[in-house]
């Protein structure tokens, strides 16, 4: 599965467009981590626990998007975009979407 956020993949030709695929996940913050982050809020700086949490959540959103693409027979997702929104206090939605395509290697590749 080739994933990129540009419209084309070098060395590959888009044979078929299969439409929009998407994946999302809503994550809430862990209470223990939340308390620690509360302390961190006093001193400022990076909240590593949240960075990890959101990073993992985003990976999951991408995985779901890829699963959706695989299910409809695609072998690549192009033009991928991400979006984040806070749904309620303490929870965030991570959303990934892109265009599922069938790619074939360029016949004139490696020139």
């Amino acid at each position, binding site marked *: 599965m080739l994933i990129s956020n*540009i419209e084309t993949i070098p060395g590959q030709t888009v044979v078929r467009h299969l439409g929009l695929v998407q994946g999302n996940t809503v994550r809430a913050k862990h209470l223990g981590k939340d308390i620690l982050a509360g302390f961190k809020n006093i*001193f400022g700086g990076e909240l590593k626990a949240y960075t990890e949490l959101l990073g993992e959540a985003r990976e999951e959103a991408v995985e779901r998007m890829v699963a959706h693409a695989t299910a409809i027979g695609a072998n690549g997702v192009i033009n991928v975009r991400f979006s984040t929104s806070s749904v309620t206090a303490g929870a965030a939605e991570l959303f990934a979407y892109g265009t599922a395509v069938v790619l074939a290697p360029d016949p004139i590749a490696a020139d």
Partner: protein
Amino acid sequence: MELLLLLVLTTLGYVFGRIAERRHFASIREREAQLMDLLIFNERTPPPGAWRSATLVGGNVVVSVDYFKRLAAGLRALFGGRLTTYESLLERGRREALLRMKAQAQAMGAPMVINVRLETASISKGEGDQIGSIEVYAYGTALCPADGAVTPATA
């Protein structure tokens, strides 16, 4: 008692927040210098040349302001104008996220990242109506040149 707590928190925030921020900026500058050769563009099309692969790379970071800065920004917001305390927060976040994205691209041996997009989200919105922490996510497509190919980045 409450006033005392506020004073203590503000002082702690001011002292540690300042140290942490200065250290963070120093580390950002250092890593930026290290990764200077890795070029990033927000152009959508790959430059001409033979490319072996195009892979999605990204980096994220959650940063928070300290207690003092939040208080200062709250006071400043009464009069309006520039909230410099938040400006530096966002700058830290963006530069750090870009650096993490670049580090990921470097790990796969890519000389450049194209179509870079930055996304900012407020994490603590709704909690006491205060924007304390933000998440920045930077993503783009890392291009690896085909073996032996001469590209603008390797030439």
